[in-house]
């Protein structure tokens, strides 16, 4: 990428940024409204509105919306934003266009942490699961980075994907082994296929502070991420402490992935696709890419969840499948593009 192109992209992207953000927010709002109204039984938007602002416990539809649809929609927003922001931060700090918390084994590590917590502390509080999930995510991340950066030529995208693949298979196998050994397969199904179906308000309440913290951190370091994405030489030349920023970025990624996996289970590809879309729209500046990713990621996940509920009603299609179907072609396209650029 040459410098003039880059700066041109930034200024234009910066001008259009408020427009894209408004469009994204409107889309998210529409998706959320649809997600509250449509499901196994359709309800009018007015009923949904009533359930939120004039709750009447005698109306069963209000009950359904309060207990099932609202938390589910909120969970979709939280998870979608988390995963997309994770992907954006990782793509920037590792300069790797294929980075994604699902593909890099982080989500599998988190799921494995949950399996350990279910096996060791059955029926333990929700906070324990979240803690174990984050520890698992941390373990998987450090292993993936370690093996991808070992050896002569450093961390190429291809190496990162292969290391992530084997780390996620390793943790996946561990998870299945634990699930079979401790007979927690039924409880684990929720975390292996990726579903927002059984979210409760308490789970969301526990996840919320972590979510706010993670997104806040990502936004706070977004300027430094932009510098890092130009390469370590440029970044340190401009007086950036690359190491410290990477550490903070990794911690934010771990928190966000951990909470996303606790809520819906390991989902791949969201974190890879959305930041690319954002970059395409607003250019290479992460001050714009990160908030864009949050909004569009949330909208995308809510829509995908809605589609999973409506397609093949009353059965649910797990999110993991929907994202794989959308994500694989995008992955192929992006991988092909990098190869063309590097050759």
């Amino acid at each position: 990428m040459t410098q003039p192109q880059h700066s041109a992209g930034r200024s234009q992207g910066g001008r259009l940024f408020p427009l894209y953000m408004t469009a994204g927010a409107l889309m998210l709002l529409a998706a959320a409204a649809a997600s509250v109204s449509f499901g196994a039984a359709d309800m009018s938007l007015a009923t949904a509105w009533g359930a939120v602002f004039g709750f009447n416990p005698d109306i069963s539809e209000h009950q359904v919306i309060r207990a099932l649809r609202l938390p589910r929609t909120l969970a979709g927003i939280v998870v979608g934003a988390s995963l997309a922001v994770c992907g954006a931060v990782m793509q920037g700090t590792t300069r790797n266009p294929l980075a994604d918390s699902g593909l890099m084994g982080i989500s599998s590590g988190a799921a494995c942490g949950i399996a350990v917590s279910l096996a060791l502390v059955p029926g333990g509080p929700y906070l324990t699961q979240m803690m174990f999930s984050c520890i698992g995510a941390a373990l998987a991340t450090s292993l993936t980075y370690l093996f991808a950066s070992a050896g002569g030529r450093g961390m190429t995208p291809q190496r990162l994907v292969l290391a992530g693949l084997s780390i996620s298979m390793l943790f996946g196998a561990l998870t299945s082994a634990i699930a079979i050994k401790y007979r927690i397969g039924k409880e684990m199904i929720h975390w292996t296929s990726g579903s927002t179906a059984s979210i409760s308000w308490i789970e969301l309440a526990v996840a919320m502070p972590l979510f706010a913290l993670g997104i806040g951190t990502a936004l706070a370091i977004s300027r430094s991420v932009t510098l890092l994405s130009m390469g370590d030489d440029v970044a340190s030349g401009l007086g950036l402490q690359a190491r410290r920023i990477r550490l903070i970025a990794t911690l934010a990624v771990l928190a966000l992935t951990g909470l996303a996996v606790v809520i819906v289970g390991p989902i791949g590809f969201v974190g890879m696709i959305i930041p690319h879309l954002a970059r395409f729209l607003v250019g290479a500046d992460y001050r714009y890419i990160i908030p864009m990713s949050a909004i569009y990621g949330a909208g995308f996940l809510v829509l995908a969840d809605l589609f999973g509920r409506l397609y093949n009603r009353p059965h649910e299609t797990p999110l993991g499948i929907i994202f794989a179907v959308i994500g694989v072609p995008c992955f192929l396209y992006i991988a092909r593009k990098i190869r063309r650029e590097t050759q």
Partner: protein
Amino acid sequence: MKVKQARGWSVTLAFAVLLFLLVLVSLNTGKMSLKLGEIMEVFLGAASERNETIVYQFRMPRIVLAALVGFGMGGAGVVLQTLLRNDMASPGTLGISAGAGLFVMLVIAGFQITALPSRYLLPVLAFVGGITSAVLIFLLAYRRHAEVSPTGLILTGVAVGTGYGALTLMITLKLDDNQMEFAQRWNAGSLWGDDWNYIGIMLPLVAGIWLYLYSRYRILDLFALGQLLAKGLGVRIRYQFVSLALAAVALSSVSVAFGGSFFFVGLIAPHIARRLCGGNHAWLLPASSLAGALLVLAADTLVRSSIAIVGIPTGIVITLISAPYFLYLLARIK
């Protein structure tokens, strides 16, 4: 070269002896313990009916199946690596196993799995799935005016494998409880076809395809030098490449159909063999196949012997053993 050949010969022999010993250990492993003498008696036909049933009906089929699956995977892996000149190629990383798996799942969903026709249908459809996958990956990774890049091929394989995996999961979710459990165990690598009826189908297929590959070991040696050089030495590149690749896909598909998915075996067995006996396919191919058989049988014996992990599908144990080795390889490769 001479030293290497001598080593190849001894490594292959050592693997064969190890496999034989492992079979003996494995025959002794299980819920009911049999002494070595009692097993000998069974083979000499002088044992009690109970012991005969244990050995012939329960343990032998399982052992033969484990060895065959590993043998096929190890052989297919080494051929694919040589043909593509790519260290990371294998039925697993190229998505061939996933393609075969998808079609196996279709058979499970559509037919009664234990019924007679599906026994023969299974390997055929698995092969169709494997070929579909292979062609798809080649088309996606292929570009005009450029050699197919090794990493590009593997990235494509991984992506296509993920896609096939998702489709398989989608079919799995539509199954009834009974089929679902089978599908989940199959997916984890459970060596389900441990029955002489299945082995009767699998053994000739594996043996036939393997012998065909082995008869071409000189051509594989030439492919290892690079396609240009092989062409210069008079190999009909396109014909040989396609027929050898088809045979390798068929071999791995048959293994997947009856054994389940074992992602890492086809990747690791060739590496172990290549490291110990060099690049001469006259020994590399048998050594790699035997290494695969050893790996699967060892994992399966472990599963059956230890109370701590009893009931866990063999594939999971193999992944736990071999993923670290793969990571080690990845760290060493430039």
